[in-house]
């Protein structure tokens, strides 16, 4: 399965949808052929969407607790969203900014480092290439969170000498995330780079382009879809990463949404449910928007071998 076939299939299916149809079937036959499918579709849609509707309705119920959240859409007010930004103990705006910043920088860095390495593996022949690829395949089986204790101790060691990149520093956290950049994504990108014919490189070389120009101005543009997928997956991954973020970031002002909202909920679970719900809705918006817009790319990327 390559990413391209995956991308086109849903499209084709949707188009044929419009053409094929039997509006004048008797109900019995209609039900046997497609009607029951709609019943399942409706049931699954309720199952899938209900928790999201629930949290949205809870967020519109200012001052609401877990109990009052049970009467769905009984109130319609955005007060909780305002309250959310006026809580000095829980600096939601800072969490939001930190999450976007850390997620954005890490995913950009991940894409860049991964693309550099994938280019080398795909286009160059050198000693240790096969071993290198094998090692990356192996390394990607061992997520960084296995070494969470060592990461914590390493960063606390670093912070005795350079507080700026040690514990309680966002730069330190980004560096840790970048450490996982090659392991997870290079193999995915390597496969895609291989689908770009190397005759393009050669033509450019004959025209006098050096390796850097070929890479930055030609190859990177041709592999843009996989860059988008890797960037998005890594963004989604970093924004919901909890384990490492929770041990590295100590000050509430420096924490990410995952850490902050978890502590918010565990401190006052049922009391400020409405405010938590508002925070959750806002936090989900950027990720969900990206996801729904780039859906087709993601499906292609997912089937090429990565999981959320």
């Amino acid at each position, binding site marked *: 399965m390559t990413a391209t076939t*995956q991308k086109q*299939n*849903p499209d*084709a*299916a949707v188009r044929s*949808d419009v053409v094929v149809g*039997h509006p004048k079937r008797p109900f019995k036959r209609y039900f046997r052929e*497609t009607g029951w*499918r709609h019943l*399942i*579709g409706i049931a*699954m849609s309720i199952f*899938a969407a209900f*928790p*999201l509707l629930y949290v949205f309705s*809870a967020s519109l119920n200012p001052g609401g607790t*877990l109990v009052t*959240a*049970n009467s769905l859409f009984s109130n319609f007010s955005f007060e909780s969203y305002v309250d959310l930004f006026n809580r000095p103990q829980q600096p939601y705006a800072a969490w939001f900014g930190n999450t976007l910043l850390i997620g954005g920088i890490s995913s950009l860095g991940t894409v860049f480092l991964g693309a*550099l390495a994938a*280019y080398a593996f795909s*286009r160059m022949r050198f000693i240790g290439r096969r071993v290198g*690829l*094998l090692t990356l*395949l192996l*390394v990607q*089986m*061992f997520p*960084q969170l*296995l*070494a*969470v*204790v060592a*990461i914590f101790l*390493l960063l606390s060691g670093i912070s*005795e*000498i*350079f507080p700026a990149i040690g514990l309680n520093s966002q730069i330190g956290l980004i560096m840790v995330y970048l*450490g*996982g950049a*090659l*392991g997870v994504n*290079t193999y995915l990108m390597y496969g895609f780079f*291989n*689908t770009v014919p*190397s005759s393009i490189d050669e033509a450019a*070389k004959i025209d*006098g*382009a050096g390796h850097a120009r070929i890479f930055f101005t030609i190859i990177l543009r041709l592999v843009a879809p996989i860059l988008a997928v890797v960037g998005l997956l890594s963004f989604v991954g970093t*924004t919901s990463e909890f384990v490492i973020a929770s041990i590295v970031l100590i000050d509430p002002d420096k924490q990410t949404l995952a850490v902050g*909202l978890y502590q918010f909920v*565990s401190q006052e679970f049922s009391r400020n449910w409405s405010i938590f719900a508002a925070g959750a809705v806002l*936090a989900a918006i950027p990720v969900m928007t990206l996801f*729904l817009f780039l859906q087709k790319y993601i*499906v292609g990327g*997912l*089937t*090429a*071998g990565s999981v*959320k």
Partner: protein
Amino acid sequence: MTTPPETDPGPIRQSARAKRATRIADAASGGWKIVAIKILGLGVVDAIAIYALFVLVRSESWLVAGLVVAVTLLVNWIYFSRGKLPAKYLAPGLIFLAIFQIFVLLYSGYIAFTNYGTGHNSTKADAVNSLLLSSQNRVADSPNYRLTVLEQLGEISFLVTEPDGSVSIGGNERPLKEVQNAQLEGGVAVGLDGYTSLGFQDILGKQTEIAAISVPLTDDPNDGMLRTPDGSSAFLYTSSLEYDEAAGTMRDTNSGTVYSDIGTGAFTSDAGQELLPGWKIEVGLDNFVRAFSEDSIRGPLISVTVWTFAFAFLSVFTTFALGLFLAIVFNDKRMKSRKYYRIIMILPYAFPGFLSALVWAGMMNQEFGFINVVLLGGAEVPWLTNEWLAKGSILFVNLWLGFPYMFLVTTGALQAIPEELTEAATVDGAKPWAIFRFVKLPLLLVSVAPLLISSFAFNFNNFNLIYMLTNGGPRDVSAGVNVGATDILISMVYKVAFVGANRDYGLASAFAIIIFILVAGIAIISFRRTKSLEELN
């Protein structure tokens, strides 16, 4: 994953002329911009390295300083020499990979062989120091030392006028040293060149910081320390513990008990009483032996391991089954508005996972949750607090989280199976079920097997779901470590290392190594199954 058509990525061996031509082309093409960016980038790297080196040398961390020098030289050599193209492209990622993925895994391996944790997180010298500090008592007939608090570059020092009139300066871990040029006022030193004397207001502002300072009287910590209750006069404090450096023992001067270093990383009396804090030592296989022989740890470890496998397997199985079922149901071209169902059904996948778990935790709350109060009309079903119900709830929530992914993946795989196969089977007289069972399913499994394995590996370490939904609970009270019925291995590592007052990094790392070995086993199986190694050229 099928391999793309084999493309020859360039000649393997280049002739000398070709090499020269490449070099000329490179030199001619890059232009000054790329050179400028390269020099700028390397300049930044070198500047940071030099700063780091300066700090490291000052703190006498020679080994790390040597590593920084070596890496910096290597980076400069790679980027300033001609050729070495692969190295130029690989170096940045590899450096991060080496430090934050490979080194930390090896380092966990090392920590697993130490007693690192609460009470054992420093060197022996530090432990001696903090023991002496923590057991200080004011000497009953201590003379009154007149005192001025000084500050220099954010560091606080005590300027002390001793009863005999001589003036000395000292601070935390800096024994008193006599000074000559202090400014005197009525026989009391009030200032020193290069230092700022703190006034009454400043002292009030830094009260806690100043109260925590103890200045050693001499180099020998047994001589006692000066501390100040008010910032204007200091008294002599001596420790009730006395450290005998030659014998390496601590003696309690009140009770006369001798605590000696018996190799367990803490001073221990003959009766077996330990003085904490102790220090970090290598304990060999102790952590592993503890994990497998102490009943209160072995029991939970085994049940957690079993549950981890069961959870990962059942999660993959249930999500795949539902996803496949839906893919078949919606893979009918006669059905209208499939697009809309599809968008709604992938919503759970797009919603950030940690938030879903928190929202479900709210909905499954025993007293106030939506499921109990509204759907079940006030029944108090302990969804998250009963051992077995909690396990079921976790699988159910993971089904909600994971079925869209499997739905997308299997839809793609189903559509990739050629129509002709179905037609051929129909012509041969196969019934729909037989077509599915003997034609489609085998083909489907071939293409999704790698994804099922990676999904298994993901769920094996699905920390967020467990921790956010049940927090690993309900807690197993009989266990010797902080662990609950729904904890998986990785959340157990986290809880042993970071949750609660008693952190045990050594034991947590030993658990992590156990996970490492299990994952390596899965990796080997998955490599055999997917034959992905053969695709490498």
